[in-house]
């Protein structure tokens, strides 16, 4: 534990230091403008004189305004403590059922993510089984699965939503569909690799026992694919979350982290954007960690870890 903790803390601390430092040039122009309005002397004077100057130069010239760059209401780059405070306020200080709570929005996003992930991973596994067992499927599906991932999902997400809406599907389902679309691919790729991981010798062995296709699938291919499956599930669940967020952007139902992210940007609420951003990353980390825990458990019981 200590072996990981100390380096991580060091790196995080370094990033924090850089972050605070970066806030100064990022936010200095606004700080100078407000200071000037309040009658303080800044250099150079006049907003237009500063407009085209480099932020670094301005920062160096006006050390007195540095502290103002960490407390603005709508900064270009919010300071770490602002983000943390906002995260705290919107998770701990409001009821988790309130629409001002990130827990509430997180839950909405999470539920669509989980549904999408289950659909996507399920589809991925089924496709992989098909690909491994049918040459025709292997040859025809794989290139198109790759091509499908080169389509910008954000472009077709609104169409998917509109079309599903028109047949009466709303809210959870359209988001889950997009989320599934993004998560099936890593699962297919990993699962195909996994199902093909038994060596020819392993396969020959079950053949000498005259095992049926089904038997060699359940007793050999499937267990052998477990480590690959979990590795790709971890990527898949992260993609799934991205998919849900993308699905939330145009959907307009208004609940979920994705929507919170964007509505922050309509109103210039940078602190709110950043806190939603971190909430999403934390959610992703939790999802991946959960799968990691299941993985350790299962692989341990299988004697593979």
């Amino acid at each position, binding site marked *: 534990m200590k072996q990981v903790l100390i*380096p*991580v803390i060091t790196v995080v601390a370094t990033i924090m230091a850089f972050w605070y430092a970066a806030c100064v040039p990022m936010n200095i122009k606004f700080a100078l403008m407000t200071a000037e309005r309040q009658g303080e002397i800044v250099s150079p004077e006049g907003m237009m004189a500063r407009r085209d100057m480099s932020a670094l130069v301005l920062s160096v010239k006006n050390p007195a305004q540095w502290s103002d760059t960490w407390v603005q209401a709508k900064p270009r780059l919010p300071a770490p403590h602002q983000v943390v405070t906002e995260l705290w306020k919107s998770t701990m200080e409001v009821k988790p059922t309130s629409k001002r709570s990130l827990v509430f929005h997180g839950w909405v996003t999470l539920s669509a993510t989980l549904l999408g992930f289950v659909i996507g991973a399920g589809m991925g596994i089924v496709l992989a089984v098909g690909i491994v067992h049918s040459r025709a499927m292997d040859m025809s599906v794989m*290139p198109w699965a790759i091509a499908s*991932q*080169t*389509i910008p999902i954000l472009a*077709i997400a609104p*169409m998917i939503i*509109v079309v599903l809406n028109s047949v009466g599907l709303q809210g959870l389902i359209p988001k889950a569909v997009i989320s599934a679309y993004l998560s099936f691919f890593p699962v297919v790729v990993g699962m195909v690799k996994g199902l093909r991981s038994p060596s020819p010798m392993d396969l020959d062995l079950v053949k000498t026992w005259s095992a049926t296709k089904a038997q060699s699938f359940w007793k050999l291919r499937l267990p052998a694919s477990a480590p690959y499956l979990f590795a790709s599930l971890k990527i898949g669940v992260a993609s799934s979350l991205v998919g849900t967020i993308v699905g939330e952007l145009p959907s307009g139902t208004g609940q979920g982290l994705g929507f919170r992210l964007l509505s922050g940007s309509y109103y210039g609420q940078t602190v709110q*954007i950043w806190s939603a951003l971190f909430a999403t990353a934390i959610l992703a980390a939790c999802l991946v960690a959960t799968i990691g825990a299941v993985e350790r458990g299962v692989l341990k019981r299988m004697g593979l870890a």
Partner: protein
Amino acid sequence: MPLVIAAFLLWAGAWFLNVQLANGRGADTRAVRLAVPVIFGLTLVAMWELIVRGLALPMVILPAPSMIGARFATSIPTLWTDFVQTFVKGALSGFAIGGLAAFFVAILVDRSDFLRRGILPVGSFVAALPIVGTAPILVMWYGFDWQSKAAVVTIMVFFPMLVNITAGLQETTQMQRDQIKTWAASYWQGLWKLRLPAAMPFVFNGLKISSTLALIGAIVAEFFGSPIAGMGFRISTSVGQLALDMVWAEIVVAALAGSLFYGGIALVERWVTYWHPSQR
């Protein structure tokens, strides 16, 4: 309705043909390897056309492939400018910057175990920040032109590359590392002569993943502000103008460019890692 039924009949027929081809005599020939996916793809397109016509779907919902093709043919200059703006300027430069940055950090991480244990977990957290959230911020910072798109792509590409290069550098066996040690090789000799070549399959794995991410990243970033050219720009504005045929023409360009980029990298991979069992 008859058209819809025809679509499914077509599907069944094409699938039967593919099964025959794939399990037939010449299944390993280049021609069949190419024909099977092409037949599959063409069938999908034909089904799309038949279903759209059969159900008389309005163009503003889903245009038929023939319409998309017609629009594609008449808009080639526009599509080309958009392609240059998004792919060449945004995606490629971001891809290069992200790849190189990942490479240097990977070497840092490789030299210091402390950094590895610190950077990799933090890096994976940062990588989990959703692009749709970071893109508006980067547009705010780096402006509306391709620079902000390159920044988005750089961030998207960086972590998968870092993870793959680091994993690749660990790929050598203890024996190989010991061997080079008995020759009293320096760190850089070991890196250059042993570990980098051994890492190449991983590096290419990372490049392949990143290639699709790069294009998607550049397009997505354009949704959050852009000059008046670019694939993402065209897609988002054309939806507003209900020019869905244009939207799909751009999607076709994206899929084509993405697949070709991926295929190109796979070709180079074949050439660089000719020695790897998976390539023989």
